[in-house]
């Protein structure tokens, strides 16, 4: 049992930050909700299939569950207080100068806003590809869809984001002038 806990702890340490990042991007930056959902995903893993599936499969299982929990959250609407998100944001580790931090935050806000404009399935597929480096086959397994749908979703997401990014750059350029 101790070894199973140890293995679970290692899995948690490894994938909890990634899962939080995935959920934050999926939810449009609601960090506290993302952390709650990530925690819930691990809890469900520990309760149900932990010990019965290989560790590699556990990762895919986590993302599948996390995505489903995020979908439920979308349906529930924004029920969390924004203040709590600000508290969480205040606890974000500070490793940069204020200027660098501002720039990072701006960039992250931009990424979140652009991702928010994508349909949920395109956003999920793109995040799993770009952040978690899953293959198309693995993404199809996580999302329980075909590989060709994954291929199409990722391409459409990239195409849409290209356009928005270019528009944003043009807008910034225009405002500077």
């Amino acid at each position, binding site marked *: 049992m101790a070894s199973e806990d140890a293995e679970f702890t290692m899995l948690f*340490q490894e994938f*909890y930050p990634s899962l939080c990042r995935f959920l*934050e991007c999926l939810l449009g930056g609601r960090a506290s909700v*993302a952390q709650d959902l990530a925690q819930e995903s691990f809890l469900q893993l520990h309760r149900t299939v932990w*010990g019965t599936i290989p*560790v*590699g499969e556990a990762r895919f299982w986590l993302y599948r569950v996390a995505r489903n929990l995020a979908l439920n959250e979308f349906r529930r609407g924004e029920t969390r207080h924004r203040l709590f998100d600000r508290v969480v944001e205040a606890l974000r*580790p500070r490793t940069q100068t204020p200027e660098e931090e501002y720039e990072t935050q701006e960039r992250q806000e931009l990424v979140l806003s652009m991702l928010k404009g994508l349909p949920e399935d395109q956003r999920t597929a793109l995040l799993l590809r*770009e952040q978690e480096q899953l293959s198309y086959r693995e993404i199809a397994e996580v999302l329980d869809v075909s590989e060709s749908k994954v291929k199409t979703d990722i391409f459409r997401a990239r195409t849409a984001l290209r356009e928005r990014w270019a528009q944003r750059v043009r807008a910034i350029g225009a405002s500077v002038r």
Partner: protein
Amino acid sequence: MSCNLTEKVSLLVDGELSPVETRAIERHLLTCIECQQARADFLNLRQQISAYTPALNTQVQQRALASVLAKQGRAATRASAQAATPEAGRRPARIFGVPAMPFAIGMLITAAVALIVTSFVFYIVFQQAERDRQQATNTQANSSREQTATVNQPPNTNNDNSKANTFGASDEAANGKQSVDQSQQQRARGPVNSESENRQTFAANARRVRSKRPASSGTALARNAGINAPLDLHVPELLPPHEASAPRYITINATAPVAAPVRPVDAGTLAARHVEQAGLLLRAFRNARTVEQDAAADLSYEKRRARQLLYQNIVLRREAANEGNVQLASLLDSLEPILIDIANLPDQPHADDVRAIRERIGRKNLVALLEVNSTALARAYE
């Protein structure tokens, strides 16, 4: 966008094209400005999205872990408490629709079953390895064209004292067929390593054959086990002259059997799992936030794990080197000093020491290498 190959560019940046398609798209990229821009944009988006860092720190993460483990512990306690109450008989506790058993008993049973299954699997693996080793030796013995056999001859045989007998493809005879069948069974059982064993098996048959058939010439060597051929008594001298007077025994001079290696599947599975676990450890070590006062608490688990993986790494590295698996041996060789350093970190490691190890992990690109190899090994041995 007018170029219709932009979607292929998207697949290219994800490595999802076949080698032929990849070459075709790369040739296209040399001339298509639009696709070049698309590739640059896709890679820029990747960089932006992957650079996103969540709002997380060590304390939050540790609290989350503690909360998960505590909740799971409470759930287990609740399940076992419900099972012990009188109401349990009326309405058994259910978890996800399944009747719950006391958590501790369930875990003990699971552990016992896992131990039995693991022991059985190891037993099967070793048995199979042994069979494979014997089969490999048989295959070499049967397919070699240099098998020779000698027959134990009594001292007063005139023509055959200095000759060795071989199994030749000549006329069939009932007794010869019987003796060859027996010799074939002997070969099927395994390589004939013991001279006394050969003697026991073939000597009596050889004498029977000699007494009934005229000797025939021939230099034919043993074919495979399927040939029904009598013993050929007149064979050229295959033994050195100085051995002419020595008693001759049935031997099959096959090439030396090569020790059958551990079945590639089993070694590969172990290696895949080890590489996966090592990758997880290095990523956890790399990502662990080391606030000065928390350095010890953050890394004690990683140190313990590194020690466990180190022994395994040494065994697997040696095995890979013996098998000529250069890629795996090289990977494990790169990994080993990192495991040693992590395992040998003091109880209160200095941040500089930790940073130095992380830098080495980064310079060697070990995490990515382990991830790629883990996936490749797992797919190869699925």
